[in-house]
């Protein structure tokens, strides 16, 4: 059975590129463009990996991360945050909230794939 990733990102062409990349790697990719219902979607889909943009309409990626980590069920869920906000404070906040990996835009495909493989190795 294919592993499942939920990509929460509001940039349609990034969604398309990442969907292509991960599908080619054998992933089943679900997408979500707003932050408001992202947590609900995670509960429904139970993905093996969550890729999360930092700045989202409705609810920020950081708030989604905090909410998920406060739930025992998602404490170990690998969460890769993709963000154009690369400042030290943003990174520190995400790390404190339990992000598994923090990656700044514009990222390279190689970097993304390596992070995905690394985070889901087991």
């Amino acid at each position, binding site marked *: 059975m294919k592993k499942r990733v939920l990509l929460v990102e509001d940039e349609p*062409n*990034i969604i398309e590129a990442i969907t*292509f990349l991960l599908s080619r790697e054998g992933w089943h990719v679900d997408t979500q463009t707003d932050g408001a219902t992202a947590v609900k979607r995670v509960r429904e889909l139970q993905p093996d990996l969550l890729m999360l943009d930092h700045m989202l309409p409705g609810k920020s990626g950081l708030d989604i991360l905090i909410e998920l980590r406060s739930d025992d069920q998602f404490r170990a869920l690998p969460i890769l945050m993709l963000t*154009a906000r*690369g*400042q030290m404070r943003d990174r520190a906040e995400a790390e404190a909230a339990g992000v598994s990996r923090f990656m700044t*835009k514009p*990222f*390279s*495909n190689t970097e993304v794939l390596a992070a995905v493989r690394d985070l889901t190795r087991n």
Partner: protein
Amino acid sequence: MREGLTGSRIRERRAMAGLKQAELASRIGISASYLNLIEHNRRRIGGKLLLNIASALGVDASALTEGAEAALIAKLREAASAAKLPKVDVNTADEFAGRFPGWAEVLAAGYRKVGALERTIETLSDRLAHDPKLAASVHELLSTAAAIRSTASILADDKKITTEWRDRFHGNLDQDSRRLAQSSKALVNYLDDQFGDQEGYAIGSPQEEVDAFFAEHDYTFEEIESGTIAAEELVGQSEGLVSGSARHIAREILQQLALDAGEVSLQKLHDQIQSVGMDPIRLARYFAVSVSTILRRLGSLKSLNAGLVVCDRTGSLLFRKPTKGFTIARFDAPCALLPLFDGLSSVGQISRNKIAVAGRSEMEFEVFAVAEPVSVLSYNNAPLVQATMLVLPLKSNELSDLSKPIEIGATCRVCPREHCPARREPSILSSGF
């Protein structure tokens, strides 16, 4: 075998001229099938035939030949290297350009736009922490750049991509590059509104007022050099130096300039360089002045196109004159690896180094730096010290005696050197950008 893109260009020009292949072939006296081979880059073309085709199409022959093609292939190779593709793939850039010339142009244009974006980021990153609206605009630009980069990499990497996906990605690239152009323009308009002419130089900090004042004068003050106007008067005349702090800083710099000019005229300095070469120590000895003075004077010599940076004992920058490929960030602390700072711990020692500045062009410079006391010496008091660094642009093969350059960046936030030992904070540029 493909012999370049000249054929593709001929085909494009013929289509633009509304000519059928047979028509053009007839006009230049060759068979349509031979022209077909040429247009598909399967026959090398040059000489009289090329001139005839150019004439029949009403264009200059150079518009059809390899110059533009070489530039395109070089740009594709650059893009491939930046994406860290294996060398074997980098070497297929010409094949890619030959098979898909139109798409290759799209890819190269996208890559150029990403490059332009990087330069924009470098200029604006200083302001990110201070201006939420600007931060949001740059976020938009970075997201678009991320989409372009990721999509372009897929197109460059994936040889087996289906036509459907390829067309979709090319559509996305086209869409994103338009969006990038629009959002860049919107950003420029925003900046114009914020910091445009109607506000003079009212840009924000006193240092920015000073920088703008010196930039407007192109760092050249002939009236100060000749002594026909006093620093105080020139500052008083300026409408751009609004704040008291900016006026103070500018006055101090101009007064120093007047003193330096009194000791070493630019004409005599120029003449002496012809005689002894670019040797600050010998020049200082000849003019009987400090090496700092000579570095500052060399920084004013227009023909050298040099950059100049001065800092005090705390490392705070007192003066910065950029030169092409070398700038110092306004808000963020500069690169800790700058030879400028070396002298602060060994006052009086004159250093000469080669530096390579991280960025798209990775330009190299020869730099001289020294720190010297600027206060009156007294017992048991450490003197106040200023460090001065002169930055001279290098041509590619110059300074072979200093073969390994010191690799520096503008400031950590926009520096792509990931594993730099002097890194203070993460870069907003991801690796390989």
